[in-house]
């Protein structure tokens, strides 16, 4: 699937990164403007509900600190998602070690996905949120990257650390599960 709009976006990211590397701090501001909302949305879709600002900030700080390591094999946004996902998993591991943990777990999928509760304004959205809770963490992750971010299977595979084929299967299984829940 060709994507001219995305390749233009990637070209702009590459240009901004080059400008930042040559000392232009304003390029960093534009990069943050371009990707911060998508990162926040990914965090919500991933099930995060607290300190999303901080998480997005940490993602950018880590990305800019290791920008020399970004080879451009994937899109800049995909790379940012990879970093954010790692930070999210770290958060969850840390939360799991806390004795008074009330955070989400990767393994108790049915009860963990309550991030959208209280955030959704109307009944339709709350119902959709309930449908998302039926998914396994991996299904939810793949499904939200596909639906909320419009990422290709290749990009999803890069972020999640799987194959394109597996990402496709997860997406279609998730879609089927959501439909079944909504049809009940």
């Amino acid at each position, binding site marked *: *699937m*060709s*994507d*001219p*709009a*995305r390749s233009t976006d990637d070209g702009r990211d590459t240009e901004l990164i080059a400008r*930042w*590397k*040559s*000392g*232009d*701090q304003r*390029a*960093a*501001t534009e990069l*943050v*403007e371009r990707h*911060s*909302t998508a*990162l*926040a*949305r990914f965090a*919500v*879709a991933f099930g995060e509900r607290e300190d*999303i*600002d901080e998480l*997005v*900030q940490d993602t*950018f*700080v880590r990305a*800019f*600190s290791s920008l020399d390591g970004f080879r451009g094999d994937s899109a800049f946004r995909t790379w940012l998602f990879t970093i954010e996902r790692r930070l999210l998993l770290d958060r969850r591991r840390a939360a799991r070690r806390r004795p008074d943990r009330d955070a989400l777990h990767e393994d108790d999928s049915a009860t963990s996905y309550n*991030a*959208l509760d209280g*955030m*959704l*304004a109307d009944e*339709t*959205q709350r119902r*959709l*949120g309930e449908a998302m809770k039926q998914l396994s963490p991996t299904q939810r992750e793949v499904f*939200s990257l*596909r*639906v*909320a*971010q*419009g990422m*290709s299977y290749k990009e999803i595979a890069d972020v999640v650390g799987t194959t394109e084929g597996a990402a*496709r299967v997860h997406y*279609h299984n998730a*879609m*089927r599960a*959501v*439909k079944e829940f*909504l*049809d009940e």
Partner: protein
Amino acid sequence: MNDCVNAEFRDQLPALLHERLEGSERAAILAHLDGCLDCREELELLRELQGMFVSATPAVSLTTIVAALPAAPLPAGVLPFRQRVSRRMDWRVAAAVLVLVAGGGSFAMRGHMPSAAQAIASATPTVPTAVAVNATPTSEAQSTVASATVASNASRSTDAELSMTGRLDDLSDEQLQSLLGEIDNLQATTIAEPEAAVVPVTLSSDGPSGA
């Protein structure tokens, strides 16, 4: 809600939603949607899900994020501000130390140097004395000694030369002429360097014999 049997079109619905399809692909799926209720329903579901994610996402503070970012690297050849300040301070410190050393050194030397009056008192009599010694040379050796004495005195009184001008004014013309003449004589004094000895040798049939 049913699934469309055309998996390829179904697969492209999220891309259509995010406007990531090119003209021909986009036209094909739009044509398919016209005749496929299942795909239209699935596209509507995708739109609602996307709306749910959008409305559930809190706004993030760009200013806070940007403020936390590391500074952009400086172009090659440009030193960081702190380093530039440091270098400038290094130069200033070096200059301050130089001024202190030079100032302190000259102050110390001033303490050790004779005053103008002392310089006049010590320098003035030296020259006539030396000249007096040299004035009546009895031998070349004496002359050499006298020359050395004047040279020594002259070097010792070098610092006080300017001070002597006042006292020289006190000398009469005759004394000055005499002093200058003696100085000329001193300069004309030959340097006592050993000359090669020449020994005449006469060769005879019996062998060489010195004179």
